[in-house]
């Protein structure tokens, strides 16, 4: 802790566009409230995000993802530890960091009495961009988010998914070097989610860095180049989605909806994860036939599929991402 304090005092306050986009060391956040016990939302998170990377924070509700994002985006003070954006200490000099970041807040909504075009344009102008640049970027962001058709309708008349796309478009249009997106595709239909993913991939190709939180496993899998699984304020594991899937110990998952009671029969085939009445067995293709024989003899139905991030998450966290 002494080292952390000393580092904080000596923390840098100048933005450097070389090196890492974000680094945190032993970042802690404890919420204190009158009459209640303190809640440790972050318990020493150390993280690195390289420039141009797309990194996902994956975790259940209350894991600490949003707290981390709010601290990184200068909206919340940490209790201890350090966090730097482009080499600049976020806690000491937040005003120097802000020109280089943009944030999609969780469950944020655009102004209801602005159209998406007005929302994006006026936000870019408030960030200090010129009229012409703002106009061009607004049109571009509207098109990329498939909002052109609704661009001149008041946001109050738009659906929840269209409003969320407006928020994402607003932030994408900034082309800020570092974007923070807190559950960016919540409430969107599958088509819109894919549009967002493609736009975010394009942004990183052009040099931006993206840190997003999500509890959609398919989103983390499809979008992130690297991900951190967090639970109870701690980073449990970090790596690529493929690394994490490989770590599960097999390439196939066999779901036995009534298999939890028969778990002992399947232990020799690979790792077994009971979840309520069901049992998921991670197995290799070579032993699949043998495993299915055991299932049939036990009068169990089974479905077979490739291992996904869900199994990796279950193995690491011990609970499903949707479990409360």
């Amino acid at each position, binding site marked *: 802790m002494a080292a952390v304090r000393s580092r904080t005092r000596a923390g840098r306050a100048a933005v450097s566009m070389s090196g890492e986009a974000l680094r945190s060391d032993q970042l802690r956040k404890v919420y204190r409230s009158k009459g209640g016990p303190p809640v440790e939302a972050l318990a020493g998170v150390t993280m690195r995000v390289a420039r141009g990377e797309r990194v996902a924070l994956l975790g259940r509700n209350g894991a600490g993802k949003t707290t981390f994002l709010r601290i990184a*985006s200068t909206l919340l003070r940490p209790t201890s530890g350090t966090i730097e954006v482009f080499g600049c200490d976020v806690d000491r000099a937040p005003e120097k960091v802000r*020109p280089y970041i943009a944030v999609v*807040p969780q469950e944020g909504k655009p*102004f209801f*009495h602005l159209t998406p075009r007005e929302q994006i344009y*006026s936000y870019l102008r408030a960030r200090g961009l010129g009229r012409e640049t703002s106009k061009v970027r607004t049109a571009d962001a509207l098109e990329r988010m498939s909002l052109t058709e609704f661009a001149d309708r008041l946001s109050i008349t738009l659906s929840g998914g269209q409003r969320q796309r407006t928020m994402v478009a607003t932030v994408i249009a900034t082309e800020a070097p570092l974007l923070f997106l807190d559950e960016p595709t919540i409430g969107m239909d599958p088509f819109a989610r894919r549009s967002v993913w493609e736009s975010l991939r394009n942004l990183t190709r052009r040099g931006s860095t993206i840190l997003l939180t999500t509890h959609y496993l398919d989103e983390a899998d499809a979008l992130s180049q690297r991900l951190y699984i967090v639970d109870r304020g701690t980073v449990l594991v970090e790596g690529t989605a493929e690394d994490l899937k490989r770590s599960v110990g097999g390439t196939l998952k066999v779901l036995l909806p009534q298999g939890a009671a028969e778990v002992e029969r399947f232990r020799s085939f690979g790792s077994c994860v009971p979840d309520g009445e069901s049992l998921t067995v991670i197995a290799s293709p070579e032993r699949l036939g043998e495993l299915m024989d055991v299932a049939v003899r036990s009068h169990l139905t089974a479905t077979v599929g490739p291992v996904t991030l869900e199994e990796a998450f279950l193995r690491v966290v011990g609970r499903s991402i949707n479990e409360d």
Partner: protein
Amino acid sequence: MRTDARARARPFRGLAAFLGTEVLVQAHEELAMATSMVVQVVLLVFVWVLNPGLIGVALVGAVLFSMFAMGQRVLNEAAYIRIDHKVSDLYLASPLSAEAYFLGISAGVLLVYLAPVVVVAVLATVVVHLTVADVGLLALLAAAVWLTSASIGYVFSTAFRDNRAIWAYSSLFFNVFGVLPPVFYPFGLFPVALRPVVLLMPPSAAAAILQGVLGAATLTHAELLLAAGGLAGESAGLFAFASYWARRTVRGR
């Protein structure tokens, strides 16, 4: 580097653009604009019915009360976009300065709701036969009252997590301090022992000064000094505090 590299922490950076946004947003609230003068008009009718001779005092009071009531709108708007929309995060985690954010909301409210106040001010000018100097004084005092109420409104908005609580408290605060003291009626009718208290309240201090200048009330030098000094100190002090508070509360603790 595509983002403006000159971006630095400048007070009121981005104010003009954010003010424009707020004006656009609030200009859609036609009904709220139309109803913003209901309390004032009702009180003016009461005064007209009960004592038509006091209508001049009440008209001047209505202008000052209207400026004070703008603080309630600042409170509601700032809380709404923070609690309901969370769009405040979009702006506060950007190069837009916290001071510009606070002033943008406040001035946006002022610009959108000013027109009916100007109508009442013109009416007061005609009825009371205000001179150019009187009108200048009225504008100055109205500006000071707006500055204090907008500052109070913004600071209060940061203290709540639930809009329902805000509605109750904001209405209570602005009506008690705006209607109860001698704003719509002469300062001389207020109990002598409590006069120093109302001279420290922005709307009644401004009203007392104007009534004194217009001959509708008699103020001692000490009372005039207390009202003017108090209002000047409160408006400057509260604006400075609200600017500091806006910067401080960008980051939660």
